[in-house]
């Protein structure tokens, strides 16, 4: 009963995203533009840009992922679908996990795929592409999973977007430190194993526990 529900919701959300492609494209463009602003701000010195590239890409990914969180529940809340999901037979935690997975496929995975292009712009060494993509692959799902809690708490509030950033960004900090840190470790000639393992551990713990909090927050927001 659980897997058909997950399949249906993921398929439905992906289909909805496919029908409104501009939403997906906007978040991606935001990622590219923020990453392109830094060289204009800090100057075009190649060594400096090479040094800040992992941090810039990670911060841009973080902001882009946060901006798209509003979409996670808002549309379903507006047309009443969310209440029907709440009443449905599938446990709310499963519904939330499926929606988060779909959200990551639409907003997180494209970031992982486009990040090497930004790295190319910053003239990052070729050896760092792998660890950058891997850290984003492990880290961006954590952003979606944790962000879902904030999205559920601020559902339907006026000024919800700014509030969401205040709630969610502090919780994103460990992911940012580990993600950017893993690339910097490899750049310094060391092993990034520790950082990547910690990111993986965070992904597992967040995927196991955060949907409970998101479900509780959704129930509170919808009662």
């Amino acid at each position, binding site marked *: 009963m659980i897997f058909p529900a997950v399949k249906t919701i993921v398929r439905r959300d992906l289909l909805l995203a496919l029908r409104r492609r501009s939403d997906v494209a906007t978040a991606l463009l935001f990622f590219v533009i923020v990453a392109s602003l830094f060289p204009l701000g800090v100057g075009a010195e190649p060594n400096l840009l090479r040094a800040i590239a992992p941090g810039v890409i990670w911060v841009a990914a973080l902001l882009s992922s946060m901006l798209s969180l509003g979409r996670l529940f808002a549309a379903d809340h507006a047309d009443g679908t969310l209440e029907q999901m709440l009443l449905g037979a599938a446990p709310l935690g499963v519904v939330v996990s499926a929606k988060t997975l779909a959200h990551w496929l639409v907003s997180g995975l494209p970031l992982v795929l486009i990040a090497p292009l930004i790295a190319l712009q910053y003239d990052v060494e070729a050896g760092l592409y792998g660890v950058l993509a891997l850290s984003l692959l492990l880290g961006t799902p954590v952003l979606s999973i944790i962000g879902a*809690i904030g999205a559920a*708490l601020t559902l339907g509030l006026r000024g919800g977007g700014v*509030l969401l950033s205040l709630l969610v960004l*502090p*919780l994103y900090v460990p992911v940012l430190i580990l993600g950017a840190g893993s690339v910097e470790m490899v750049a310094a000639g060391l092993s990034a194993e520790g950082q990547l393992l910690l990111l993986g551990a965070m992904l597992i713990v967040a995927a196991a526990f*955060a949907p409970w*909090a998101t479900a*509780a927050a959704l129930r509170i*927001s919808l009662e």
Partner: protein
Amino acid sequence: MTTESIKWFWYASPQTFFPLAGRIARVCAVLAPIFTVAGLYVGFFVAPTDAQQGEAYRIIFIHVPAAWMSMLIYLVMAFWAAVGLAMNTRVSFMMIRALAPTGALFTFIALWTGAFWGRPTWGTYWVWGDTRLMTELILLFLYFGVMALQASIDDRRRADRAGAVLAIVGVVNIPIIYYSVKWWNTLHQGASVSFTKAPSMAVTMFTGMILMALAFWMYSIAVAMVRVRCEIMENP
């Protein structure tokens, strides 16, 4: 349910808790200045000058108790959040509202005094690479987040419950702060006082710190109780 267990909920009603909060607030408000004066006297006049850090170390009499309080108040807040969500008691949610500003205040004091201590000792106000500094800063943002979330929801019941969920989520940060100096070997030194071994400092220094910690406890309880009374009066 036996009558014994019902007594637990006697003070869960705002009406019965109101006078109790007043009594607790009065006692703590009297004790707080006494402990503060005693603690500051021991800290500034009795405790010896540190061999390595000179007089600058004396800021720990504020810094360490404030840092303890910042973590403890968050734990207490998360505890009331869990009780409130599980038992649906209104006073528990009022406790969250009453504790959050005081917790944020002590977090800020811990960061601020730490910066003042770091300037002469480490040679810098702030180090971005240090885990304890980062996690304490995140704690400050978590307090602000809980307060901002409660303030921006008009429906009081939803505001209380949403704030409680956020408080419980943020509690993962507390063990990370506490163990950060053990897990990561960065600039911030290890724990000043440990439960498992004898204090590694002069007895008078230790006494001063404990007295200040008691003073902060009394202040926090008094202020929280006064704030709870205001909350009860605003929403009887």
